[in-house]
């Protein structure tokens, strides 16, 4: 057993660190540190920089333009990215539909879609969740009826993150309603958002932001060429996709960065006579958080090590989803507590893109703490709720 990095790994880390120091735009750095939301352009520009360096498709095989990195290299990259407080690539193209296309798509589809994903020329969004389906994904109702050389899509998809920016959407739809198991008869279809019959309606979330959407399909005609793989096999492809969604699911590096910032905040924030960090109850929570985060980090590393030796990340990765999201939410809670009264002002304009000095009501980022806390209650709900994760562990790990 040995905790140290090899010389190669250390050299790799230095390269990555230099990249973020030199190539990560100062302007983005500032926006994020001030809690200002990013525009579509901000994301695209940054992703093009990542792609120029060959760092866009961390999880793709080399043949399709991926890095081909080892789990440890990916871990190092994620750590440096978090340390630089640089945003992840928007996952729907590169981490979701991309892998499905290069794994199950035909040559023509690979040629047509993968390069634009790498270059961030096309913005993808997801179409698998449906209203009412919740954790029970297989109960989806959106239909894709064959009509000549087209599929005709009807139905509604929901929780479509940043769908308002999207050029294309990947859709799980029923091509065959007359099946024994609900998981059958589902197909994986790619759809241009400009196709007539598609309407995108914003869903405003608890904290007042617009990030997710409902996407409605009314007689939307999609060429059959846009079917990925075999008709009726969509469920299998979708599971692969969710696997990839789980890459770095524990979010350890981001949480470590946030805990470090929280300590700084608590060291400056005054509580009675002392800085908050010296106040016993809060200090105890910081210690408990650091202990839990260290445990999470090593459970994550143990999983990586297993993957590195060829073992697929089994249902144990459900632990990472549960503990990873609990950690994010624990940090959110402590940020709110540290902010005191300054968690209360609802001043989104002051964090908007075109904020002027007049918009600044409270000269502090603390008013973002409660908004983030409220918004990230979703973390224990999405991606398979933590209750579902416990059912998975009970069944597949404990054999219950």
């Amino acid at each position, binding site marked *: 057993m040995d905790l140290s990095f090899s010389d190669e790994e250390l050299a790799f880390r230095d390269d990555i660190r230099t990249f973020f120091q030199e190539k990560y735009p100062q302007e983005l750095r500032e926006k994020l540190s001030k809690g200002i939301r990013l525009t579509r352009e901000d994301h695209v520009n940054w992703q093009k920089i990542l792609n120029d360096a060959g760092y866009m498709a961390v999880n793709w095989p080399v043949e399709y333009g991926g890095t081909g990195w080892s789990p440890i290299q990916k871990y190092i990259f994620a750590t440096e990215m978090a340390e630089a407080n640089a945003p992840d690539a928007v996952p729907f193209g590169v981490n979701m539909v991309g892998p499905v296309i290069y794994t199950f798509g035909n040559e023509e589809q690979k040629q047509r879609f993968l390069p634009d994903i790498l270059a961030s020329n096309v913005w993808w969004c997801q179409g698998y969740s449906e209203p009412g389906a919740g954790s029970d994904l297989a109960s989806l109702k959106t239909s894709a009826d064959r009509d000549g050389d087209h599929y005709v899509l009807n139905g509604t998809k929901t929780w479509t993150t940043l769908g308002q920016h999207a050029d294309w959407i990947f859709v799980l739809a029923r091509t065959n309603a007359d099946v024994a198991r609900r998981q059958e008869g589902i197909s994986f279809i790619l759809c241009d958002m400009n196709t007539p019959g598609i309407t995108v309606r914003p869903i405003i979330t608890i904290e007042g932001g617009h990030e997710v959407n409902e996407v409605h399909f009314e007689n939307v005609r999609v060429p059959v060429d846009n079917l990925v793989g075999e008709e009726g096999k969509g469920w299998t492809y979708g599971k692969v996709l969710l696997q990839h969604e789980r890459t770095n699911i524990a979010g350890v590096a981001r949480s470590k960065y946030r805990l470090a910032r929280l300590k700084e905040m608590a060291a400056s924030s005054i509580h*009675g006579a002392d800085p908050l960090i010296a106040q016993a109850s809060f200090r105890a929570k910081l210690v408990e958080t650091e202990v839990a985060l260290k445990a999470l980090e090593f459970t994550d590393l143990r999983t990586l090590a297993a993957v590195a030796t060829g073992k697929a990340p089994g249902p144990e990765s459900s632990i990472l989803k549960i503990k990873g999201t609990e950690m994010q939410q624990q940090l959110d809670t402590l940020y709110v507590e540290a902010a005191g*009264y300054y968690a*209360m002002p609802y001043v989104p304009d002051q964090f908007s893109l075109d904020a002027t000095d007049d918009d600044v009501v409270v000269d502090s980022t603390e008013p973002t703490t409660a908004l983030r806390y409220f918004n990230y209650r979703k973390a224990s709900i999405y991606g398979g709720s933590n*209750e579902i994760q416990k059912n998975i562990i009970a069944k597949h790990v404990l054999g219950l």
Partner: protein
Amino acid sequence: MDFSITEDQTMLQDSVSRFIQNDYDFDMRQKNAATSQGFSTELWQSFAELGWTAVPFAEADGGLDGGATELMLMMEQFGKGLVIEPYLPCIVMAGGVLKRLASDAQKQTWLGEIIEGSKLAALAFVEPQSRFDLHDVKLTASKDGDGYVLNGAKTVVLNGASADTLVVSARSSGDRKDEDGISLFVLAADSDGISRKGYPTVDARQAAEITFDSVRVSADQLLGDAGDGLATLHAVINEAIIAICAEAVGIMQTLNYKTLEYTKSRVQFGAPIASFQALQHRMVDMFVIYEQTRSLLLHAVMMQDQEDVVAADAAVRALKIQVGTEGRKLGEEAVQLHGGMGVTWELDVAHYFKRLTMIDTLFGNADFHLEHYPLG
């Protein structure tokens, strides 16, 4: 030992409860919250006409002699309705200082209009550096002739933008954290030298940043004796804590009810999720939290007319600790059991949750009161 309430109290409870159920629906509340003022002046007038704005004041001052029990009964209903009208900052907080310290003349000048509902008030006591410490006051009141001049800033002043009348804590002597030397003044919100920046809060209330730049107040705007303000401030905030915790109990009961209804109707994997035992036991925990919190609320209310002031203070802190820890847990569980819907703006559950969460912050969070709890 008697847990029953009087006929008058029952009538008050019914009148508020009926109003909330019949005349205070959620969509209207959301519309009013979205206005620049952030609540409805018409509704505030109805509150006044129904006599609610008079409840906590002495009959001699035109009030109804209500005590902690009446306050609890009303605020619990306000919690169920997520009422955004400024009863807490105007009546409980600013009014609470005036009813305790104002002379008859001062009451005539300032309190009458508040009780009538013709003017709104706010209590400005939080400062950028003070966090939860009531005695951490930097805003200065310097003697000037027989009056004072106020200089400094107050932050997150509830109802600060809509208020016509301000009650403000100021340091007339001593150092920043001295317990002595804090004076309370009442003044018109449009006095020269006052500038206000209003904004909504994350729980759909209203607050303001207020700066005082050489604001002159006359001697008859000083409430009580100079330098003796802290004890009253502490008493008023304790009453305000009972008020928001009663509100929290109303919110918890509503969240539990809505969670039960939702899980009974929500079908996943072919069964209502309320049939899953793991969720059932969690809803039982939510029910137990609600009952335990109600018990601490009754305890705190009943302690207010006992002699032992330390025990009365402890009872208030115990209640606030419970709401800030167990109550928050209940809110998070309610959202979690509602799944994706629970984190949408559209669903009222999200807004009950946000208010319940912010009640922990208001007037000192659980850690603060745990630290100051008189363990004896």
